[in-house]
């Protein structure tokens, strides 16, 4: 295993932790945190797609017009744009999940999903 693969391992570990929390935990808040961990592991994975060791920031200096030379030294900006979008989407989703959690607590008086069981069959 080289140093370059370590961040990928981290993303994988975070992803497994997120999935474990979603599947195994009973508390609604913990499940929401599990979704967040999973989301950030995938954001980390996307970020690594554009990473280049020692690369420059993907901002062109004024007057630098050579696209090829620029692309050869900078990190890839596209995954960063994707992550920005995905973080915003995740934020909206998180807000909705927390709203639901608050409403569920008002109605059921508990955060324990094993005691929130109206629907079955």
């Amino acid at each position, binding site marked *: 295993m*080289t140093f*370059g*693969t370590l961040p*990928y*391992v981290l*993303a*994988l570990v975070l*992803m497994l932790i997120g*999935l474990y929390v*979603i599947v195994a935990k009973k508390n*609604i808040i913990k*499940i929401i945190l599990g*979704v967040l961990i*999973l*989301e950030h592991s*995938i954001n980390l*994975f*996307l970020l690594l*797609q*554009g990473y*280049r060791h020692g690369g420059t920031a993907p901002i062109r200096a004024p007057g630098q017009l050579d*696209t090829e030379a620029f*692309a*050869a030294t900078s990190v*890839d900006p*596209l*995954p960063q744009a*994707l992550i920005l*979008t*995905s973080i915003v*989407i995740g934020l*909206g*989703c998180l807000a*909705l*999940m927390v709203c*639901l*959690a608050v*409403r*569920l607590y008002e*109605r*059921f008086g508990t955060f324990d999903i094993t005691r*929130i*069981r*109206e*629907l079955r*069959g």
Partner: protein
Amino acid sequence: MSSLLPLFVIVPLAAGFIAPLGQFWNQTHGARTVRALALLAGACLLAGSLALLGRGPVVCWIGGWPEPGRATVGLSLVVDGLTELLLVTVNTIAFLALLYSWSYVQRFTGQVLYYCLFLIMLAGMNGVVLSGDLFNVFVFMEVAVMASYALVAFGVDRSELEASFKYIILGSVSSLFVLLGVGLLYNLTGQLNMALVAQHLAAREPTPAVWLAAGCFVMGFGLKSAMVPFHAWLPDAHPSAPAPISAMLSGVLIKAAGVYALCRILFNVFGMTSPTGSAYAHVLMTLGALSMVIGVLLAIGQWDFKRLLAYHSISQMGYVLLSIGVGGAVLAAGGSKTVAGLAVFGGLFHLVNHAVFKGLLFLCSGAVEYATGTRDLHELGGLKKNMPATSGCCRVAALAIAGVPPFNGFFSKLIIIVAVAAAGYWMLAGMAVFVSFMTLLSFVKVQRYVLEGTPAHTTAAVREVPFPMQVAMVGLAIGCLLLGVLAPLHKDRLITPAGRVLTDERAYAATFQPPTFDVTIPEIAARPDSQERQP
């Protein structure tokens, strides 16, 4: 022409965000204006999607990037036969659901927000079917499903909140798997445009990373379309929403964000004729067959009207995936193009038919609930006397879903069974016949307990639902009849071009033909550590 394509997303999105302003104007007039605005937006979209039929492949680049050949980061909207079919289906059901909502939603508080969420969901669905960019598919899918999470919880009752919470957790996980698949494909090809990714994938040997990406997409979109190992959320979420939303969720959302996206990516991006194609096709067939059988078996025992319909959605979408999967398997094995075309045709025909009759059934269940206040089959009965329009429409839809001629469900199921048998899968054809029989049985029960029998004390004094709701239901009922009887007339304009998109799978990649094929960031695909990570 092509510059008008973004309007399919812009119109509902703009109407959705203008709508909440209506409530600041005047309480009574504001709500009415919002309803009229939403209906107008729906009518415009329907007219636009009909006008688009048969225009062939149209590509629209958004953002004014100067050289579409080089600037592969620009977003494209692509219209081909499959997109046209889905656009017409989505916007027809949406328009009728909006018409139905005119009366139905007046009982709720916050109906302005209802229209806002409805139109945002519609914008997301139109975006998913139009998008030619993998990441944009993800974004529009999130727009559509996020609005649907909120709509499922719209009643903010105990069961609705619980259903919405289950739905949002499973929906988020599935979306994240789709995002992981997009990331893996970007790693492999350095592209996000679906046509360019398809060209790259066709030019290289399948590595384990290709399998992994395909697996992520199958899991993500399989969860969105509620195929059987992933189906647990659907019977909770779909019945909890208000009836027009149930019709939209079951009628079109699981198709646009689930089955359409899955088929588009597996056929047109990964490719069924590639070395890995046969495996994809068999995954689709297995998911389809499992959903078909298990969905109907679970539906038999249900006594909640809408929950029963939700289980049938799983079962009927199983037919669609089974048939399209068989088409893919025939293509992958290099078999007869005619059989593959027939199977794909049957699947897509059933997809449209299911949108129409399941939409109608959910609208009928909403009408029954509107008039009687319950959807428990034990408490209903004898409605045919007091609610002639609703019960007539309900009967048409039940006959259509059970596959009784001359309604549309009969023709599509017949084509599916013939195509599956012609491809040599006799067992699966037998299962399809069996499931059809069980569906009939289940809907005989619905007829018996809702429409026939002696009126229960709760239903003795019911009245027929308001006129807009009747118009929407009768419109869909006529659709059930005409889609079946007039199949020879509409098939060449509507369904055959859509089927050809899937069977001539390389044609999609050819819709993108850059004058100078030159990747802006060549290092990404060739970077040494890009292949090493395999979760």
